[in-house]
C-alpha cells in the first residue's frame, strides 16, 4: 500500500503509526477502505449494508490489538461510517481508532462515525480514539467530526475509553451512550482543546443496570480564544451501583465552557457522585512554575499540557 506524506503524518497523529500496523487493521482513506488485515482471532469484514466494517473478536483473545484509523485528505467530503465490534468472552484487547482530516480547500470536510461495542462477559477492552484536523494555509474549509459511541458491557466486562481531540477540529458533536451490567465497569477519559472560534459539544450517558456496575466519566477541556465547549453528562443508577462523573475545564482568553451534569438515582442503593470545576489557570500555579524558572507563557503551556495528558 502506498501512503503519501500527508497520510503518513495524519496516521502518526491519530494512531501513532509509523508505517503499517501490526495485527488486525483497517485503514479508511477518503471514504473508502484502503487496506485491511484480519488475524486468526480478529476478523474484519465489510458491513452487509451501508458503509463501514464489522469486527469480530473470538472468545479468549488476549494481548492483541486492532487498529482502524480514518484519513480524509479531500475538501468537501462527507464520510459517514458505522463500525460494529463484537468482542467475545474473556478477551483482553486494545483497539485504536481515530480520524484525521487534512482539508486543502474551501469546503467543509466531515466525518460522522458510529462505533458500537458489544463486550462479552469478563472481557477487558482498552479503546483509544484521537481526532485531529489541519488545513492548508489560506484555505477556508472547516473540519467537522461527529463521533458517536455506543457501549454494551456484559457481566464482569471492563472497558476504558480514552478520547482525545487536541487540534484543528472546527466543530464536533460527540456522543457516548453506555449500558453497564452486573459487575461490569466503564471508564471514559475525554480530553478536548478548542481554539479560535471552534465549538465542541460532548454528551455522555451511562446507564448502570446491574448490581455492582460502575461508571467513571472524566472530562477535561481547555477552551481558548473565542472557542466554546459544552459538556452534558448523565449517569442513571438502576441497581446498587457506583457512578462518578468529573468535569474540569480551563478557560484561556475569551473561551466559554458550559457543564451540565446530571445524576439519576433510580435505585435506593445507587451511589452517584459528580464533581465539576471551571475557571482560569490559578495565578498561584503560574507563580509556582515561574519560581522554577519558566516564563509565564511556558508555565501556561506546561499546565495545559499536564491537564490534557
Amino acid at each position, binding site marked *: 500500500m502506498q501512503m503519501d506524506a500527508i497520510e503518513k503524518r495524519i496516521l502518526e497523529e491519530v494512531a501513532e503509526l509509523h508505517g503499517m500496523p501490526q495485527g488486525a487493521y483497517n485503514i479508511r482513506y477518503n471514504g473508502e477502505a484502503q487496506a485491511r488485515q484480519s488475524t486468526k482471532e480478529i476478523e474484519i469484514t465489510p458491513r452487509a449494508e451501508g458503509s463501514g466494517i464489522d469486527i469480530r473478536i473470538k472468545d479468549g483473545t488476549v494481548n492483541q490489538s486492532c487498529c482502524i484509523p480514518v484519513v480524509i485528505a479531500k475538501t468537501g467530503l462527507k464520510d459517514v461510517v458505522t463500525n460494529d465490534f463484537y468482542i467475545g468472552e474473556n478477551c483482553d484487547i486494545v483497539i485504536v481508532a481515530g480520524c484525521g482530516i487534512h482539508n486543502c480547500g474551501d469546503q467543509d470536510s466531515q466525518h460522522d462515525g458510529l462505533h458500537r461495542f458489544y463486550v462479552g462477559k469478563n472481557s477487558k477492552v482498552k479503546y483509544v480514539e484521537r481526532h485531529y484536523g489541519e488545513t492548508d494555509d489560506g484555505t477556508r474549509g472547516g473540519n467537522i467530526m461527529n463521533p458517536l459511541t455506543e457501549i454494551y458491557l456484559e457481566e464482569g466486562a471492563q472497558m476504558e475509553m480514552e478520547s482525545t481531540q487536541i487540534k484543528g477540529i472546527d466543530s464536533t458533536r460527540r456522543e457516548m451512550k453506555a449500558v453497564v451490567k452486573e459487575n461490569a465497569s466503564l471508564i471514559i477519559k475525554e480530553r478536548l482543546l478548542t481554539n479560535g472560534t471552534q465549538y465542541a459539544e460532548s454528551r455522555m450517558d451511562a446507564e448502570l443496570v446491574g448490581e455492582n456496575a460502575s461508571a467513571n466519566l472524566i472530562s477535561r477541556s481547555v477552551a481558548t480564544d473565542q472557542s466554546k465547549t459544552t459538556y452534558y453528562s448523565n449517569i442513571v443508577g438502576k441497581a446498587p451501583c457506583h457512578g462518578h462523573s468529573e468535569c474540569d475545564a480551563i478557560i484561556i482568553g475569551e473561551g466559554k465552557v458550559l457543564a451540565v451534569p446530571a445524576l439519576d438515582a433510580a435505585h435506593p442503593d445507587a451511589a452517584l457522585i459528580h464533581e465539576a470545576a471551571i475557571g482560569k489557570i490559578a495565578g498561584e500555579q503560574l507563580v*509556582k512554575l*515561574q519560581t*522554577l*524558572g519558566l516564563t509565564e507563557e511556558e508555565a501556561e503551556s*506546561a*499546565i495545559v499540557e*499536564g*491537564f490534557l495528558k
Partner: protein
Amino acid sequence: MGFYAKIDAARRRCIFFRSLKHFYKLICPKEAGKEYMLELKNITYNVDDEQGKKEILNGVSLSIPDGKFVVITGPNGGGKSTLAKIIAGIYQPTGGQILFDGEDITEKGITERARSGISFAFQQPVRFKGIEVYDLLRLASGDKDMTQGQACQYLSEVGLCARDYINREVDASLSGGELKRIEIATVLARKSKLSIFDEPEAGIDLWSFTNLIRVFEAIKEETKGTIIIISHQERILNIADEIVVIERGQIRRQGPKEEVLPEILGSDSAVPGCHVQKEQGGMH
C-alpha cells in the same frame, strides 16, 4: 625582631589575603558586593486595605553572606513571609533595593530571579491536576531529559519512597505533609545558589516534622548554597548559623544563633517543637 617574624605562618597568610581582598574591593567595586550573596537595603512594602494604607515592611536592611543557613523568625503577621516573597520576586517592594550576588535585581521578575539562582518553597504548595511529581521535578531541574532515577534521588532525600510517588499527580490526592516534601524536593532539584523555604513545617504532622528537621540538617551538611528558612520552630532555629528576628515590619535582632536564640526562647519567635503537634495534630 620584626612584626612579621613574631606571628605564625597561618596568621601571615590570613593578613595577606585580607589585604588582597581590600585591594580587590578598591579596584572592582561591583564585585565588592559579592561579599554578601544577598543584600536588602531599606525595603518597604505597603498595601492598601479597608483602613487605608498598611505598612507590612518598614525599612528592612539585611545582608546575608554566602553559604550561610539563616532562619528568619518573629511573631505571626510580622512580615517574615512577605520578605521571603519579595526576595523571590513574587511581591514587588514599595521601596528599597535588592542586590543578589552584587547585582541589582529589584526590578527583575520571578522568572529572571529564578534563572539567576533563587529558589522558593511555598508555605502552601500548589496543586496541579495532571502534572505528575516526575514532571514537576523535571521542570524544576531545567533538564527535560532528567531520568526517573535522578528524579527519585530527590524524593528519597526528602524521605519519600520514590517508586510510590514519581508518577503520582500533584493534586488533592496527596496529603499536606507529602506535598510539603515534594515542594522541598523541587527546590533541591534546582540546585540554586539561594534557596528560600517559607514555613516548611506549617500544616504537617509531628512525624513529618521530625523528618523535615533531618532533611534540613542533611541539606545544611551537603549544600554549598545559602539557605533562608522562614520559621519560628525552635528545632529549626537550632540548626541555623544566623537568626534574624522580624517584628512589626522591622528587624529587631540579627546575629549568630548562639547569641540570638537564648534571647528569644519561650517567645513567639521560638516555639518548641511539640507545639506543632498541638496545632496541627489532626492534619496529615
